């Protein structure tokens, strides 16, 4: 399962991510109100380059809200988000993607009415670079670029295991397949920080193990940092290097998944809201 590391053909390349940076993302005092209720309150987070961080907590703790604010689909009421030193708090979502953040949504967000391959190609948007007028005269160049993009898309699909289904309509895939496709689309945007919102919902044990190994491979071979919001504790134990616990919008504690899960306060928080462990 080797993740492709280079592709030429006149398409923009990221500067290769070699050594993990010390801290890739930082939030300070992140706050979000819905109506009068504080969904997220003064949330501080440090994410180290190359780690897989789990964001856990009972239902309604504000985990997805935090993720949405990092991704840029929600704007915080207060606080700051820094990506590799750059303040991205007010940036629109698409601009953050250009800086290397990609998100997999909680529900299966796919491009309807498009095939598996087209979905990944759409995700590769940032890599296709030619202007409007060039379509009229640089046809050879464009065809070459299209080929390179297609090859790259196939590589990504091979990585997630969907390369046999390229012509299928995206929504005709079973749930697990759709999840994998969502991941492939996010990867097509060539992220350095991957945001996974409850990736394991509705998955059986085999599918969960598969995704865990994929995300770990992304970390090991490509140095991709991942933030995972998840309820499934076994998966978190298996996947994450570090975990942060949220409760009622506040950070409760953080540490290794093992420590955090055995923390009595955390257990109480979960039992109190009657969540599955």
């Amino acid at each position, binding site marked *: 399962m080797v993740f492709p590391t280079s592709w030429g053909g006149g398409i923009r390349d990221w500067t290769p991510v070699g050594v993990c940076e010390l801290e890739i993302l930082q939030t300070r005092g992140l706050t979000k109100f819905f109506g009068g209720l504080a969904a997220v309150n003064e949330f501080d987070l440090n994410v180290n380059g190359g780690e897989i961080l789990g964001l856990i907590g009972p239902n309604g703790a504000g985990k997805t809200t935090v993720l949405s604010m990092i991704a840029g689909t929600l704007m915080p009421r207060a606080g700051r988000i820094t990506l590799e030193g750059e303040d991205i708090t007010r940036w629109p*979502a698409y601009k953050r993607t250009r800086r290397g953040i990609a998100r997999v949504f909680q529900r299966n*967000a796919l491009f309807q009415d498009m095939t598996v391959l087209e979905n990944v190609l759409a995700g590769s948007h940032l890599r296709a670079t030619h202007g*409007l007028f060039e379509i*009229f005269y640089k046809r050879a160049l464009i065809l070459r670029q299209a080929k390179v993009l297609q090859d790259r898309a196939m590589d990504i699909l091979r990585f997630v295991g969907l390369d046999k289904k390229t012509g299928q309509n995206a929504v005709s895939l079973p749930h697990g397949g759709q999840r994998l496709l969502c991941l492939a689309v996010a990867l097509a945007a060539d992220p350095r920080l991957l945001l996974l919102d409850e990736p394991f919902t509705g998955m059986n044990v085999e599918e969960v193990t598969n995704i865990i190994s994929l995300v770990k491979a992304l970390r090991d071979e490509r140095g991709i940092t991942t933030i995972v919001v998840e309820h499934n504790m076994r998966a978190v134990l298996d996947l994450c290097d570090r975990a942060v616990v949220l409760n009622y919008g506040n950070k409760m504690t953080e540490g290794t998944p093992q420590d955090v899960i055995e923390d009595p306060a955390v257990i109480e928080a979960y039992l109190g809201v009657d969540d599955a462990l």
Partner: protein
Amino acid sequence: MSKKGGLNAFVLGAAAILALLMPAILAHNEYLISVLILILLNILMVSSLRTIALLREISLGHVGFSLIGSYASALFMMKCGLSFWPAMLASGLLSAAVALVLGYPFLRVRGIYFSILTLLTAETFRLVAFYWRGLTGGTMGLVGVPSPGPIALPLLGTVSFDETGAYYYLTLVVIAVCMGALYLIERSHLGFTWRAIKNGEELSQSVGINVIGYKIINFAIASFFAGIAGSLFAHYQHSLSADFTSRFGVVTSIYLVVYMVVGGQRSFLGPAVGTIVLTVISEWARPMKEYQPMIIGGIAILVVLFMPGGLVGLSHVVGRRDKRLDPGGGM
């Protein structure tokens, strides 16, 4: 796939030959040729309307940009001394520029607001043209719009565009080029990005697509072609008026949407089919005077309720019976 491509090429070739021979076929009947010219202009209008519809937005005020194109082109030739081709291009660009400016507030809001806003905008443009005596002749209209200057062609000598036949060929060439451009744009990465936006707007943002930017560009491109059509209209009619029943009124916008839906907006040539079929029916129904809009309205309702794919959709339904055996679908 290549079999279908071969069929398409054949059909296009046949259509092209037919189009070239139309004036002769119609025995140089001036009225009928003028109808053809209007059909051609409407084909461009409806096709560019469909471009906007590719993003699932319905513009009810497409004629507004055509109005800008018409008046601008006329005034560029009359007041600024430009010759036809620069005037036409400039008026197209002006329409696109206006669309760029309006695009940002219009496309940020919910879809149905966009439709309402475009409707209001076209009406506003029309009223401004109607009342601004200084610029557009006001209620009297703008008269004396010149034809394109004569050009010297190798075999035909000097061709003057004062006569309908010659103007028909001019229009045919310009429209063909514009349609070709629209087709290429739709098949390009730009068109693909539009498809992605249509099929998943939030996801598009997430993969780095500046959605509002692409929507504005789409709107500007469509308006450019509306402007071109307007320019061709102006130099053919030689006079422009902006009253309620004119080409720039609400009713025309409505007809354009009807043409698009009846023809079928999922296919590139749907607008052309719809325009041709409905214009032919209108002309045929002309002796029925006041009942004519009724027939068009009735057809529109029936098609949109019972044939969602439009007329072009019918052929797909027929063809689909073979496709059901192939699960892949293909690109």
